């Protein structure tokens, strides 16, 4: 085996891959070979580093140098300067936005400083398509020790004590879920991994599957052993081709190494995994809908009970766990429940991965200990609001979460606190909005999504969300009334109170939380017919200042709908009822006489 002096880690996640990271890999291989360094420098395609804002990422080890936004043509420079001469390439280093200094060690970057990577421990560190790198990082140790100990109840107990809760959204204790499934006897039971990541903009599960697929396989085998299931199924979105590929490769390798299949490591335990593809319906993240979809039925939820633990896939006892939840399992077993439960808050242990997006400097995937505050996430990790604008709100929990304001910035993030604040953990979407966001439009944006993604089974969700959306539309168009606001509040509450599944019960959250936190903004739309953020086109008003208007007629001549009247050399006027707010007059006026109200 060649002993490499240097390792070049290149992000092969979906994000960086779409920015040509594959070409970067190729160039490294080509140029290193050219310099006859192929035996000294190893090139590794890893999973996601998380700092997607600055991708593609290239990391040189052992110098611990973190290059950002690398282009394929930069490779020669890196090889010749850094690898051969030992000189870091300053132009590719991350620049600290505060003091404009170059930072080469990712540890010293604000983005990584506050992070604690447990679920993402191997992402961006190992080659996901090489099982040996996973094994070298203690991979399959947890499975081996669980099998050797041969006491599933004790393992479940350990998971219970660790305080791990489901990372898919609801936060149900994982150990409890397993213990509910274990006693149900059946000729076949199923361990199911929910990889149907449906929140728009969220990609934590995808990144784990792409960067560390073996951790999921190992965790599923452990779970299977604990609940007495010999079959594992991964329900994964067909839109995740790379994750599917990596998972397939990993499953194949695990089988080769005897870590899946019959009689795993001589324990007598059989376990194998199959993939099931989803068509990307948001509602299929709900476990009963997911199971129906896997069975080839319409993907819609059914009333619980019966719970999947009793009657799941094909009517057999099944356990459904989310990808991120599973990624924590092997580490908890290896390092002990005491270690895991020492991280986080009283009721929420461990870490949580968030997909940080919106009007924020550092967009990307982050993992922080539970209890980290929103302020730390937004300002320290996220690097603050883009363009120096003012923070307005942060939306957590995906499309059915809520919008939280400044007053919640110092709230430690955990399941209970987010719900108490009117939002939720969800699967980990976090979208930051600045002062230019109109909160009515934001609520409408999320409603548009749930209206589209509702399965249509229950009336409150199928019709109610549509009606909510229509009322919001009316408000943003300036046609809302105070009665509409009452209707909006009542309807949102009724939907929350009566919908069948989690999707419908949470879909009004964006409306309710924006009403709670931005009531004035709603009133401004309805009473003053103004959009304070200036986003709602229908509420914009173009007005001519008679003092400044010289009567040049340029505006009137260019108005496509003849909404401007006036005579030459006299101040003109805009007929607001005819104006279509196209902004042509505003652009054409040479005297700055037209303003937007």
């Amino acid at each position, binding site marked *: 085996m060649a002993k490499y002096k240097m390792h070049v880690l290149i992000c092969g996640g979906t994000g960086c891959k779409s920015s040509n990271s594959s070409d970067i890999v190729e160039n490294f291989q080509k140029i290193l070979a050219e310099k006859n360094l192929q035996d000294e420098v190893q090139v590794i395609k890893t999973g996601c580093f998380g700092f997607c804002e600055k991708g593609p990422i290239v990391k040189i080890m052992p110098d611990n140098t973190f290059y950002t936004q690398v282009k394929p043509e930069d490779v020669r420079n890196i090889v010749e300067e850094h690898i051969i001469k030992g000189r870091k390439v300053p132009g590719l280093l991350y620049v600290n936005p505060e003091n404009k200094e170059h930072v080469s060690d990712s540890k010293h970057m604000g983005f990584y400083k506050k992070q604690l990577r447990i679920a993402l421990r191997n992402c961006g560190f190992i080659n996901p398509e090489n099982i040996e790198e996973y094994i070298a990082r203690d991979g399959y140790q947890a499975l081996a020790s669980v099998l050797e100990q041969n006491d599933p109840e004790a393992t479940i107990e350990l998971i219970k004590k660790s305080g791990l809760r489901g990372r898919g959204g609801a936060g149900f204790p994982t150990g409890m879920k397993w213990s509910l499934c274990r006693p149900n006897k059946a000729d076949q039971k199923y361990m199911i991994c929910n990889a149907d990541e449906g929140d728009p903009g969220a990609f934590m599960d995808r990144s784990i599957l792409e960067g560390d697929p073996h951790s999921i396989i190992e965790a599923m085998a452990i779970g299977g052993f604990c609940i007495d299931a010999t079959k594992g199924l991964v329900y994964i979105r067909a839109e995740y081709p790379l994750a599917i590929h990596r998972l397939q490769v990993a499953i194949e390798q695990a089988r080769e190494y005897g870590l899946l299949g019959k009689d795993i490591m001589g324990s007598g335990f059989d376990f194998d995994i199959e993939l099931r593809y989803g068509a990307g*319906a948001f*509602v299929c993240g709900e476990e009963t809908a997911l199971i129906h979809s896997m069975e080839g039925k*319409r993907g*819609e939820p*059914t*009333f619980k*009970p019966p719970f999947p633990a009793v009657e799941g896939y094909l009517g057999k006892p099944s356990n459904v766990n989310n990808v991120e939840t599973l990624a924590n399992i092997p580490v908890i077993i290896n390092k002990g429940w005491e270690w895991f439960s020492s991280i986080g808050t009283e009721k929420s242990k461990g870490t949580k991965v968030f997909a940080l997006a919106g009007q924020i400097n550092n967009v990307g995937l982050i993992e922080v200990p539970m209890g980290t505050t929103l302020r730390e996430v937004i300002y320290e990790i996220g690097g603050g609001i883009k363009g120096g604008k003012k923070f307005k709100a942060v939306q957590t929990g995906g499309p059915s979460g809520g919008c939280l304001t400044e007053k919640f910035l110092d709230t430690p993030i955990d399941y209970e606190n987010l719900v108490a604040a009117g939002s939720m953990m969800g699967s980990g979407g976090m979208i930051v909005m600045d002062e230019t966001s109109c909160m009515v439009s934001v609520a409408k944006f999320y409603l548009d999504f749930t*209206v*589209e*993604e*509702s*399965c*249509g*089974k*229950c*009336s*409150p969700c*199928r*019709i*109610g*969300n*549509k*009606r909510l959306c*229509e*009322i919001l*539309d*009316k408000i943003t168009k300036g*046609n809302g009334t105070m*009665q509409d606001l009452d*209707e909006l509040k*009542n*309807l949102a509450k*009724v939907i*929350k*109170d*009566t*919908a*069948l599944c989690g999707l419908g*019960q949470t879909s009004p959250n964006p409306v309710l939380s924006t009403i709670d936190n931005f009531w004035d903004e709603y009133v401004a739309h309805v009473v003053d017919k103004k959009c304070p953020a200036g986003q709602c086109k229908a509420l914009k008003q173009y007005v001519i200042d008679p003092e400044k208007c010289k009567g040049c007629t340029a505006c009137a001549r260019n108005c496509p709908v003849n909404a401007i009247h006036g005579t030459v050399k006299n101040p003109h006027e805009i007929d607001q009822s005819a104006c279509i707010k196209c902004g042509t007059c505003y652009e054409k006026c040479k005297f700055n006489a037209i303003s937007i109200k």
Partner: protein
Amino acid sequence: MDTVKLTIDNRAIEVPKGTTILKAAQSIGIDIPTLCHFELDGLDVHNRPGGCRICVVEVEKRRNLAPACVTECMEGMLVRTNSIRVINARKTVLELILSDHPADCLQCAKSGNCELQDLAIRFGIRENPFIGAGHEMSQYQVEVSPSIIRDMNKCVMCRRCETMCNEMQTVGALSAIERGFPAVVSTAFNQHLELSPCTFCGQCVAVCPVGALTEVDHTPKIIRAIADPNKKTVVQVAPAVRVALGEEFGMEPGSIVTGKLTAALKALGFDYVFDTDWSADLTIMEEGTELIGRLTKYLGGDKSVPLPILTSCCPAWVNFFEHQFPEMKNLPSTAKSPQQMFGAIAKSYFAEKINCKREDMVCVSVMPCLAKKYECSRDEFKVNGNPDVDYSISTRELARLIKMANIDFASLPDEKFDSPLGESTGAAVIFGATGGVIEAAVRTAYEVITKKPLPKIDFEELRGLEGVRSATIDVDGLKLNIGIAHGLHNARKLLEDIKAGKCQFHAIEIMACPGGCIDGAGQPLHHGNSDIVKARWEAIYRADREMPIRKSHENPSIQAIYKEFLGEPCGHKSHELLHTHYFDKQTTVEVDLGK
């Protein structure tokens, strides 16, 4: 039995474990409103999607309201069914449902018999904040098939039709399609029903709470035909109609109204009022003879004889095996259904008798069934394009005709069917209930084979409402194994057994609708009250007992037609007029996926 104690609206109650809040409340006289929920006790029909959310109740310590129809009672539960929170939620949900439902009640086929309309009345809906500017309504194409009209603009997504189509009938023609607001129940790729595996059993129509699924209305054509002086109108009435029609006029379920029914048809102006029971007796002669023929050959050592013989009276069942088991189409009896036998005889034998040209005769059937509308439109039942049976109307349509014609049904005097196609036996009446056809056939077959009179006419072992039943009849030493199935999911089980070579039966009777024709899709709507179905079932056997002749082969009119016209059962003339053949209709749907 384990029980749980709980409190509903401050009343303590103890119920068996597993009871839903809805049932528990009902048992103490609390009538929680429902819409999607539908059950037929004892007939294996359950639709509990918990989807409409009209039945929500407040359960202490629960975050959200709970649907009473699917939430099981738990020890110590505190339930409020009428708190302000509940009433506000229900009313809002109802307003939402109504906001996506056309308000054309006055012209709707279901007006007065609509469960959504009942709810709107109950909640006193006078205005609806969700209707009007900016609020969209669903827009679907109305589809008309030979039997069923689908107006999905009225669909409330209760999914009852889907449950009937997929679980009760295992036909799989209907399923929810699309997501979100456009979600609706439809056929695969939104194809026409006739291109789907639909059997036209109409059970979807029978359970639809609103006017989304209704029958094709033939009454205007019948009114015109009766008024046409150049037409001779001949009407036949199926056995199950006489035990259900009374319900439409406020009579007790299970009332036998044969005499009033005959009088009403005469009052409507039909030229000849005949009885499908007559042709049911004829069916027994043909089908029974066919059974005896096949059995004799088989017992004589010819193992190539197709057995078991399957009945073929039920047109939805015929459609079912043509679509789903075409490879077995040699098994069913080739005898036409009583409706079609009647039509064939009416337009040949009887037309000749009264000297009427085929084109001048309009043959109408009154059926408890919607598939009969489709059956009479089949090409093989036409002569030069002229159908043997012109129009088939349901029990409900007949009731409308009677009401429209100012006939006070309840006070009509009893009248008798006309001759010669009006005489019948008790064996024919029981065609209306599951197991009846095979019992009638056994009554005749026994006497034909043994040439001895039956020791006991009532074959109790063939009766009942269980989905699959079987009995062995001792025909003078010959053990005849009989199977019976009703509801097509039960038929499927038997057919799969036959396919797997596990079937021990010589003959099997199959009816598509649960309970047989008494619960056919053309009958008065029972809205989930299975007592009504049971009352009809009892009435069928009561009618049988009241008949002076109870074996088909003893029907003098039947004996006469063989003597003067048909010759012998399964003879040449019979084959021409009274037998049919089946088609492979395994669905091949062409879909343009480019759209």
